[in-house]
């Protein structure tokens, strides 16, 4: 187990929108070198939680700490260096070249008026390589396929080189090879000791994470490792028993543990 201090701690987060309670007393810890998948049905409050963790939305109750500092009191640029956030797909569009898009990840380091130095350029190249985006780095975002686009936007997030990385549905609408590419990027981040949290709709992908947080109706229903029976029970419950979680044996000759899959229930 990691003995490091958590990279991010959120305690007692509550968000109310009008009469509706979107998040209610949510607490979550993100550890360096581990990735956490956040799962739950539509309207569970997953994306809202992620935007609170990113400092994009002030919670009505509770607080978020990043690297031991209060997120709410950090200047915007410092917060942006600590926490990188990938929005749900669909919003980014336009005629900017991929390399320029990825370069935006260095804005928190350069500031609006700065210009890139050797470290920034290196970070951009590394991010392009890690996501396999180098080949289309000169093309416009609007000209890319869905998978290429998502890799480019993920590279933008990697270029920040933040200790905490938050990804909102990074694999939705992607085919399996591209989904696997995203997971590889996440593994790369984790190896570099980043704390990663991703909202995922694909439960089988989520079950490959180090830790799962199961949400429903604005509350955390369970959290634990992918093999935890309590987590399995909570997932099956929040999806109204529409799915079941089964283990498949690890491939012969590897010392990996069992892998978990979510199947539609009969």
């Amino acid at each position, binding site marked *: 187990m990691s003995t490091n201090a958590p990279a991010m701690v959120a305690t007692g987060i509550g968000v109310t929108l009008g009469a509706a309670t979107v998040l209610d007393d949510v607490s979550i810890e993100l550890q360096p070198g581990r990735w956490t998948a956040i799962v739950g049905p539509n309207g569970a409050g997953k994306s809202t939680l992620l935007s609170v963790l*990113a400092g994009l939305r002030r919670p009505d109750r509770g607080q978020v700490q990043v690297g031991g500092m209060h997120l709410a009191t950090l200047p915007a640029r410092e917060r*942006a260096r600590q926490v*990188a956030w990938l929005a749900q797909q669909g919003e*980014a569009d336009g005629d*900017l070249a991929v390399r320029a898009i990825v370069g*935006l990840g260095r804005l928190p380091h350069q500031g609006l008026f700065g210009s890139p130095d050797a470290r920034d350029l290196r970070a951009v190249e590394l991010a392009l390589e890690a996501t396999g985006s180098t080949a289309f780095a000169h093309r*416009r975002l609007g000209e890319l396929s869905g998978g290429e686009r998502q890799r480019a936007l993920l590279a*933008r997030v990697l270029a920040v080189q933040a200790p905490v990385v938050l990804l909102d549905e990074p694999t939705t609408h992607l085919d399996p090879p591209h989904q696997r590419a995203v997971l590889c990027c996440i593994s790369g981040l984790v190896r570099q000791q980043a704390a990663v949290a991703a909202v995922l709709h694909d439960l089988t992908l989520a079950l490959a994470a180090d830790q799962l947080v199961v949400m429903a109706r604005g509350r955390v229903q369970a959290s634990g490792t992918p093999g935890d029976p309590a987590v399995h029970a909570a997932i099956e419950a929040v999806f109204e028993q529409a799915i079941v979680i089964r283990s498949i044996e690890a491939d012969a000759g590897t010392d990996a543990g069992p892998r978990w899959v979510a199947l539609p229930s009969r």
Partner: protein
Amino acid sequence: MAPARPTATVLAMLLAAATAALLLAGLSAGSEGWSLAWSEAWTLVRDIRAPRSAGAWLAGALLGLAGAIAQGLFRNPLADPYLLGSAAGAGLGVVLVLAAGGAAGASIGLATASALLQAGLVGAAFAGALGGVALTLLLAGGAARPMSLLLCGVVVGVLLGAVSELVLLVSPDALRGKQVFLLGTTGFLGWDGVGVLAAVLALALPIALRVSRALDALVLGEASAASLGVPLAQVRLLLVSLMALATGAAVAQVGLIAFVGLVAPHLVRRCVTVAHGPLLALSALTGGVLLLAGDLAARSVIAPQELPVGVLTAVLGGLYLLLLLRRSRG
């Protein structure tokens, strides 16, 4: 596949060459035809053709810059420099001054540029354009929410347009003056106007370039830009102010020139893949070339008579947009 595109530097050099060639043509084109023998008509060249050509280029550059800012700020390729109430504000300013002049019994000669300047129409149009944008900002509660900014721009346009109509009902004589002034013409430009336009461009362009990376970040969406630590509210207010200043200065000097601000950034984006810094500068250059070419055409097509350049740009710009529409369908 991505088509091969020239670099920003090549495009800038082409535009600079086009500017030089068009300026030369602008100095040579007169109502009696073309002549390079400037010494024979030196006063004409110095006092009329030169300021007119320089002013047309500068006004076009300001509109191109304002259009590129508007399209980046609102993340909409159809955004236009006039959409925040500056056109309606300028119209109201002009109508008010004309009506006041009419009420005071001072008959304003519309045919001559000097009379227009004396009547303070340029100042009124400028103040009106800035006032329109200020009212839009006030109603929208600042520049934080682009959608309410756009909607309030529409409301202000309708509102100030209605007030203009009301004033025109009371003093119908002002109608012709408003038409002549706002139709879009480079015919009234003098060296004073050129100075104002140059000063505004020299102020607005460097500041806009300085914050252009915020427009790059906005490509990712509002929330992503905020997540990168970009102070969106302040940057937006600054850019809206620059847009209002550039548009207001152009409207005050040359009236409502349609489509230059809308089309210039489009043309640049078709040619090169660049970030907003070069895009803003190249859009200004393109806007200048477009309006200078338009002015030249307006003077020459039915010489010795003259077309209002605003009508010409409206026709050409409209055709260009239709072409774009057909291509994107096909």
